């Protein structure tokens, strides 16, 4: 693997989200807060979301981790805002399939998220990318059941 292959992992848009994270912080009026960490590497995220009538109206994240985990969190918060719970959870399973190199529905507009596709070729880094998504899925599933 040369540095050219690394470019398939560290795409410019990923680096942009890492350096200039969107939705960084804590939602003062959020009604869902999920803390999650990756015990094998020390990455951690605190995700706060506001869900009103089944719609994610706002989302923010705090945390520390590598470029992949933090940019993925930034993109995820961007992607779920305005989505209803089902669509957000569906997007999470699309993302999970993408990470595992499986076929995924491409009729959804993935936007920046598509840049993370390269992570699937770096098995050791998949958990970095999925951390924020797992937090989102956990929070929304709990919300759905309550």
């Amino acid at each position, binding site marked *: *693997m*040369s540095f050219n292959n*690394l470019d398939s*992992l*560290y795409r410019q848009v990923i680096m942009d989200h890492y350096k200039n994270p969107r939705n960084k912080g804590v939602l003062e009026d959020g009604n869902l807060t999920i803390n999650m960490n990756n015990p094998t590497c*020390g990455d951690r995220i605190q995700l706060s979301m506001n869900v009103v009538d089944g719609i994610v109206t706002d989302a923010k994240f705090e945390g520390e*981790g590598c*470029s*992949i985990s933090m940019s993925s969190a930034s993109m995820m918060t961007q992607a779920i805002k305005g989505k209803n719970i089902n669509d957000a959870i569906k997007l999470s399973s699309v993302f999970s399939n993408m990470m595992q190199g499986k076929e995924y529905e491409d009729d959804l507009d993935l936007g920046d998220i598509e840049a993370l596709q390269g992570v699937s070729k770096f098995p050791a880094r998949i958990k970095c990318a999925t951390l924020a998504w797992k937090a989102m899925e956990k929070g929304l599933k709990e919300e759905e059941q309550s």
Partner: protein
Amino acid sequence: MDILDIRKQFPILHQEVNGHPLVYLDSAATSQKPIQVIEALEKYYREYNSNVHRGVHTLGTRATDGYEGAREKVRKFINAKSTEEIIFTRGTTTAINTVAASYGAANLKEGDEIVISHMEHHSNIIPWQQIAKKTGAQLKYLPLQEDGTISLEDVRATVNSNTKIVSIMQVSNVLGVINPIKEIAKIAHENGAIMVVDGAQSAPHMKIDVQDLDCDFFAFSGHKMCAPTGIGALYGKKSLLEKMEPIEYGGEMIDFVELYDSTWKELPWKFEGGTPIIAGAIGLGAAIDFLEQVGLEHIAEHEHKLAAYAMEKMSTIEGISIFGPQDPAKRAGLVTFNISDVHPHDVATVLDAEGIAVRAGHHCAQPLMRWLKQSATARASFYLYNTEEEIDKLVAGLIKTKEYFSDVF
């Protein structure tokens, strides 16, 4: 010590990873295995695989001789008085858990104290947390000096007549510090406490003499010292082991089994319930033969040289922080570091693209990471097969990493 000749004996080193010759700098996580060990395992499985201590048949006798022969090698390796004091375990973790669950459960009560340090590996923290909760004993942490070392004044201030157990790692897997175990053991004993040593990072790299250290228990893992995974040993003073209860019950470890009660075998077998790790022990024996042939003192000297060389070269990289004592004389063969603005996972991924294997993460030492105020760090660790040329490659890789990340930003 002829490094090229040593490298020839490690088949795994002779491969390319991602188009580059493998540079394996993760031996503190697990070491590579020399051909002597691989062949010993193969020979056992091809020629004399059999259960030990039971069959009258020839293979059973050979397997028993191999297994018990390995115990004698371990005894000699750490200079224990007798093979009764050597218990084969799955590794350091199982060994420390055995001490906590058996000795700890029988000897701790409310008001007693267990002393560990801020630099410990999780395997020397959690067994004590759990037994403290069960017995009502209190867990106390030795503070660290600014450079990550332990001061004996702090040991004297922390250990007192309430202290029943002191458990400290001999070499830190993150800071590379070599702790003054003999002196700490002396303070523990003056206060009536026992001394437990986590030797996971020391036994592979330096001559161990448990009688000279005067420790009560010493735990180490085979896989970090050229042996297979799944085998390690617990040394314990006979006088203590004799009074301790087994923590695993079943086959192998019994003397008489009645309907409602049983008695145990003598030492060390009462602690080895179930079919033991026969192949692993034989592999550990072969690894000890190999290391002793090279000479532990030569290995230690080589690693000190590599660490000093790495510290010198790496410290020239702008924006690098190296954790632990800056004086190479105080260190074992590993360097833990961070590069400003680049997360250690990203460092490890870029180095991997160059064929260089380093560890990134919290190194199973979350309390120490908090003490260092780092969420994660990168670590390059060396063993007898590493060379200065490989460290040059690491340094070149780190410079490339920095350049790569400054380009993409």
